[in-house]
């Protein structure tokens, strides 16, 4: 089963990369604000069913993929993939 984890800097956490990209976009003439840069982790998960897959990916996020002090995450499962 394919899963995608989206890891984002939490609100209020300074994201210098996002700020730099935002400044560059403005420099190019785009009217943008609040650019934030996160991370995408695509995974192939071996699991019997979607519930088990989600539970496994939750554990991966808690143990490694995101640091709860600074990052939040969302899990997307592609059940037919």
């Amino acid at each position, binding site marked *: 089963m394919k899963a995608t984890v989206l890891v984002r800097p939490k609100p209020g*956490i300074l994201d*210098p*990369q996002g700020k730099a990209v935002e400044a560059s976009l403005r420099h190019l003439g785009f009217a943008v604000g609040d650019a934030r840069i996160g991370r995408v982790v695509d995974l192939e998960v071996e699991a019997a069913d979607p519930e088990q897959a989600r539970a496994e990916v939750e554990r991966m996020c808690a143990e490694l993929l995101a*640091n709860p*002090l*600074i990052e939040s995450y969302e899990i997307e499962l592609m059940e037919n993939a």
Partner: protein
Amino acid sequence: MTDTKPRVAVVVFPGSNDVVDAEVALERLGAEPVLVWHGDEELPQVGGVALPGGFSYGDYLRAGAIARFSPAMRAVADFAADGGFVLGICNGFQVLCEAGLLPGVLTPNESLSFVCRDVALRVERADVPLLSTCEVGQRLTIPVKHGEGRYVADPELLAQLQANGQIVLRYDADNPNGSLDDIAGVVNAEGNVMGLMPHPEHAVDPLLGSADGALILSALVDRARERLFAPA
């Protein structure tokens, strides 16, 4: 007193690059450094542990995030839980934070630039075991060299660190990375684990511009000596 040199472990991860500096500095300060490979499941008989700087596992994902799963880090965690003294320098500090042995997390510098220069530090606590050789308010000159040294904690954690006196070193007037509250070094609640971004092992000889780093490393050597050779 004894003539025997206290053994201090220096843990080597793939990507650690200050191992030799740490070894040489500890040796000069009277210790016998012992290199411990990241795959080792046990520490040798040592009185202290130093986690050196570098880019363990390429700093993939987040700095220190992968190194914390190495067998040697499990042994370091057991050593710390037993009251052993652990000093994390730069990447070592990042590893200790990711491993949950120290509070907080180190994030990319506010400037997004790698900083490499001497900084002035202010000693906030001299009654913690790994700063016993310093005085409160003392100014130390020690170099930093990192891209991810901005210390972050949420307001609740910061208040807790301030209340418990766990912020032991601060950047003095010149904050090189945007660290919260000018934090350069912290200890755990018990005080036996300390991490700092500046590199004391690069400042142990006046020829290198400063010997202030020797103060911090000698505290580790002193603690290691006491732990190994304390009278029964």
